[in-house]
């Protein structure tokens, strides 16, 4: 090919690449616009009509004009009409007096917000990366947030999390839980690669959380007063304490070895007995929560629809062997508010 021919060919390739990418971008924008203009397919309740009833609060994930907003359904009719708020959250944890909301604004603006019972922002704190988990203690006095620390591909340490506990409504701030004294299997340790995430509150100063170090994960019991984390069990992620405080549910790798397939397990704190429901879900990556003392609920992404997820429930009472059932469709990050 002559030098001129090569130059022409290069210009042609460049033009085709630019035109194709632009055309795709515009088409995609139209598609998103159209999607965002659609009304939700689920039936709608009047705004605020469910706000004082026992309810399940969650992030709505239907591809429509309410995508990503916080919504709620009645606890006794989870497949029924949905009451939408105007608040956008990636993760939401509600209690009777409000909600903790982790949001993404743009690509780098991550924020933890405290919302009051009327969904107004009372307080906000910047997060160092993509939101991961948030929980509020049942009495609404404490809030925990976990986010990833957005590093970069240069960072050889893999992923890193930051988990912070604060008093609701301002006041005390216990900071990053990584700074707490760590006791694993009875030995005080201070590994530099430790990560803490997935807090579940246990009343008073006590809570449970996950600690990862050296490639292993631990269920730890924490104490805000003593600033300690003490291991309870191994191989447990994202704990959730049952309402009666007797059992902890968490994620486990059901297929140790090659890949990671998350399943669910329940630990009886009094006896130490661990139970993995035989027909439990696979591929759960959510911090589960308890619907009641026998039932877990959790979000599960749809395989065929990126961005859409549903909330499922699983009966974990002794002897139960039912498969998970769909509880709330087009939903994510559920919390139960029964007052």
């Amino acid at each position: 090919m002559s030098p001129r021919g090569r130059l022409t060919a290069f210009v042609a390739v460049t033009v085709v690449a630019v035109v194709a990418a632009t055309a795709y971008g515009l088409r995609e924008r139209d598609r998103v616009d159209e999607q965002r203009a659609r009304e939700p397919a689920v039936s709608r309740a009047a705004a605020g009509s469910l706000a004082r009833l026992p309810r399940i609060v969650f992030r709505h994930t239907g591809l429509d004009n309410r995508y990503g907003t916080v919504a709620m359904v009645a606890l006794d009719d989870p497949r029924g009409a949905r009451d939408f708020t105007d608040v956008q959250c990636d993760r939401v944890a509600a209690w009777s007096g409000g909600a903790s909301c982790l949001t993404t604004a743009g690509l780098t603006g991550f924020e933890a917000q405290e919302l009051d019972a009327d969904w107004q922002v009372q307080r906000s704190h910047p997060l160092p990366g993509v939101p991961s988990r948030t929980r509020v203690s049942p009495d609404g006095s404490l809030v925990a947030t976990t986010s990833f620390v957005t590093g970069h591909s240069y960072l050889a340490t893999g992923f890193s999390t930051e988990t912070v506990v604060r008093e609701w409504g301002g006041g005390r701030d216990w900071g990053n839980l990584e700074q707490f004294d760590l006791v694993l299997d009875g030995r005080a340790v201070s590994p530099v690669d430790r990560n803490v995430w997935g807090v579940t509150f246990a009343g008073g100063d006590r809570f449970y959380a996950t600690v990862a170090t050296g490639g292993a994960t631990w269920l730890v019991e924490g104490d805000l007063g003593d600033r300690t984390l003490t291991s309870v069990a191994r191989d447990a992620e994202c704990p959730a304490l049952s309402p009666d405080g007797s059992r902890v549910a968490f994620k486990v790798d059901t297929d140790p070895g090659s890949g990671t397939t998350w399943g669910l397990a329940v630990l009886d704190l009094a006896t130490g007995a661990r139970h993995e429901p035989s027909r439990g879900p696979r591929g759960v990556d959510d911090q589960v929560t308890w619907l009641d003392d026998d039932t877990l609920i959790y979000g599960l992404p749809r395989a065929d629809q990126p961005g859409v997820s549903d909330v499922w429930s699983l009966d974990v009472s002794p002897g139960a062997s039912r498969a998970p059932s769909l509880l709330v469709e087009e939903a994510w990050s559920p919390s139960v508010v029964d007052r």
Partner: protein
Amino acid sequence: MYLSLRDRPPAGPDARLPRDARPAPRRVGRAVVVLGMVSLLTDVSSESVAAILPLYVTGVLGLSAMAYGFVDGLHQGLSALVRLAGGWLADRTDRPKWVALAGYLLSALARLLLLFAAGLGSVASVVAVDRLGKGIRTAPRDAMISASAPPEHLGRAFGVHRMLDTLGAALGPLVAFGVLWAVPGGHRVVLVVSLAFAVVGVALLGLLGPDVRLRGPDGAADREADGDPPRVRLRDLADRRLRPLLLVAAGLGVLTVGDGFLYLALLEQGGIAAVWFPLMYVGTNVVYLLLAVPVGRLSDRVGRARVLVAGHAVLAVAYLCATAVEPAAVAVVATLLLLGLFYAATDGVTAALAGRLVPVQARASGIAAAQTVVALARMAASFGFGFLWLTLGVRTALLVVAAGLAVAVLAAATRVRRLDEAAA
């Protein structure tokens, strides 16, 4: 055999002319600029994806962050080993352009596959293909730069290339932000735009890139008595002139802890808020791209090995800065400036040096060897430093490494003159 190696290996056609007959080149050759632009386009492509990959993998694909950490780990190690193969292949065939092109093509293919990757396994393999491509192309490309610039301006040529390369790395995330601003939630649009940049980069190299021959225009100058072109041999890499460089690079490399650790140290001591963490890389990159050319020119004047070793002295000072708590803002700015200067003084300069310390038929392999030694030594440094951090605490650990690095710099300084003479 070693006797003949005393001669300076011929580079481009100009290199064979007597020094004073050559026109004093004002500008860097077209070949270097084209290669720099190819790197710029490719880095825009890879860094725009890197900026959204955590969000894409966890948010859109719905994989866990643990899974992302696994993908991220793949990003690191893979390219070092493939690099040697790429260098060897470039030397063996004497067609560095086509070996490099194969590497760029692989990475472009990875961008295409990423559009269809849904599970952890497929994302991980796509990332692996991308790193494979990067490993293959680096040494042939650097050998082409080494062969296309006159020896006395080699530092500047590499400086220009690294400047364009780093500019691409800085622009990539901006392109991603821009696309997501224009198309909210358009993660796949970012992937398509990234693919477009990769395709244009491949087209630029394939259609307009110089078909540099490492052994001169027809290889005649290096033909051995029996007429066969000289082959690359392992012993070319054990060259008496290259060995001291590998030794120096390894010795300094094992004391080079990743810049991520320095940022973590600043974070740990309250110098910066975690929110600003990603900006640390941007700051270092901006300093690097501003200083790449001036420092490259300096290395042409005062000697490349000298600049390489001095760059590590700068790094030792950066360690000290990162341990200085007060005032925090000064510590942060000084650390970023020094880190950028360190990269400007070491990255391109190492390749410039290595390409001149081996027989011409082993140039790409020599560059690959030096870069692999640096990469492996730095990997060892990261592991070692993690341990030191754990046992001594961050301040003491950094002070210990700074002291070790100062001793290594002094030891390396004794080799500088001989290295620079051997590479002249």
